[in-house]
């Protein structure tokens, strides 16, 4: 395939993915908006007003970046996991496998599709948050960079999960038992400076903590951890996971007999 044909193939796949999640918007776009509105009302307004300040900001202002990031992570991941697994299940993945599309285009197409949903939901949640607080951004470029990279990282994670999955249950295990606990313990609702030293150290092993903190730093200008360190870690994870996913795809893991 020449360059323009490759771009057409990539765009076709991305567009197909976007059409898929917008066609089923009551399942993909609406629920996170409602859930996050509940978080804002209950934790931000009702309980938050009694908690007081966190790292010098109102509790509502503190949790908004974390909740946006939580939506981006879960939606990026689950979009690719469910879409790619559905393609495997319905065997429509064969449409791509018999075509001359290189494997990196297939992988990138699904990642970009996952990012489109993750970032789309992140935008919707951001708009919803404006009904509850006035958002300010201290470092807009950094905020955008970190949310885009995080979305890409978890889209790749969803892809690997779907490649390895043999049944629909297999694509819900990671989000339920790994992603959700790590997100809740990743400083979305609290500053890790509130934890005893030991648990602060344990928290530092949670990769989601870095993403939430850098994202919050972009909004509020405060972070529990060094920003440069966190960005480097996200980049490293993206490169490592992309390479693993591509190698699995080249070997036909889970899709070629």
């Amino acid at each position, binding site marked *: 395939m020449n360059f323009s044909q490759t771009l057409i193939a990539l765009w076709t796949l991305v567009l197909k993915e976007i059409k898929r999640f917008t066609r089923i918007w009551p399942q993909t776009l609406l629920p996170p908006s409602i859930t996050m509105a509940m978080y804002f009302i209950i934790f931000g307004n009702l309980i938050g007003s009694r908690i007081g300040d966190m790292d010098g900001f109102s509790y509502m202002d503190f949790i908004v970046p974390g909740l946006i990031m939580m939506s981006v992570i879960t939606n990026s991941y689950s979009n690719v996991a469910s879409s790619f697994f559905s393609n495997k299940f319905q*065997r429509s993945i064969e449409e791509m496998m*018999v075509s*001359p599309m290189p494997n990196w285009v297939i992988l990138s197409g699904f990642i970009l599709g996952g990012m489109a949903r993750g970032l789309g939901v992140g935008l919707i949640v951001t708009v919803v948050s404006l009904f509850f607080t006035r958002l300010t951004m201290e470092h807009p470029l950094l905020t955008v960079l970190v949310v885009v990279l995080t979305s890409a990282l978890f889209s790749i994670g969803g892809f690997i999960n779907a490649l390895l999955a043999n049944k629909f249950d297999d694509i819900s295990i990671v989000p339920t038992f790994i992603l959700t606990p790590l997100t809740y313990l990743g400083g979305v609702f609290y500053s890790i400076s509130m934890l005893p030293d030991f648990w602060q150290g344990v928290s530092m092993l949670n990769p989601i903590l870095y993403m939430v903190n850098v994202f919050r730093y972009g909004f509020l200008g405060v972070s529990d951890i060094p920003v440069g360190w966190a960005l480097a870690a996200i980049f490293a994870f993206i490169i490592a996971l992309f390479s693993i996913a591509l190698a699995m795809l080249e070997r036909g893991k889970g899709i070629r*007999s």
Partner: protein
Amino acid sequence: MAEPALSIRGLTKVYGNGFQALKGIDLDVQQGDFFALLGPNGAGKSTTLGVVCSLVQKTAGKVTIFGIDVDKDFAKAKYQLGVVPQEFNFNQFEKVLDIVLAQAGYYGMTSREALPRAKQLLTDLGLWEKRNGSARMLSGGMKRRLMIARALMHRPKLLILDEPTAGVDIELRRSMWEYMRRINQYEGTTIILTTHYLEEAESLCRNVAIINNGDIVRNTSVRELLAELDTETFLIDLAEPVAEVPTIEGFELHQLEPTQLSLLVHRGQRLNDVFKALSEQGIEVVSMRNRANRLEEMFVSMVEGSGQGAIDQRVASSSDETKEVRA
């Protein structure tokens, strides 16, 4: 001589559980051919085609498509290839038009090229009116035609049809045959067909390979294969019931119903002798027809001869026109 459309050398496939599906097969399909790949279930047909389409990873061997080694330039080889698989493999929730346009996009076709092509193919295959409907709303026959339209979007030079008319009614099957003949004759598309309807292979294909237990047991022209047929079985319908099976010297007759006989005719025997003998015994014949199509009889004898014992021969429909063999 032009490169074969498909050339397979020493193709071997051993699955993870140790089952050897292909035992080093060699196969050539010439450009412009209409080629049948036949064999009972589990013989290795779909594995062979799966390797060609890169859906199955081969253990050993070489596959070239129009001289292009699929291991060396897989993208270029895939441009030559269109695939209609045995099972529906599109997203049932997508629109018909979206499915064919997406396939064109995967081959790098612009929407300006793809849209007229999609319109032409969907119209030819009777699906244009359904273009904005969800694919799951299509009937089984329409879904099969949708997969044919999708496979032809990028104008492949080699089309692989894996049981394209399975479960399709006779009228529709015949219209699909016409369409396949047309693209083979007028567009020069080489077609490889696997089918359980041996009448289909006999009617459409010029050359045939029979695969059994992972080996090619015959690779020849349909005409040559049929010339080897030694016997044919006919069904004879009688005007009145007969009390016992009539005896005719040199012929084997069995009574199936009070008014129906089966007759085994060897090569060189004359049917006139049968009619004459029956007439002399006062038995009036109403009609006569083949019990099965000729290729089917040949296929059963070959597969049984190569050790495939349990051939389940079944009639696909109540019509005598269509017979199906499945093992």
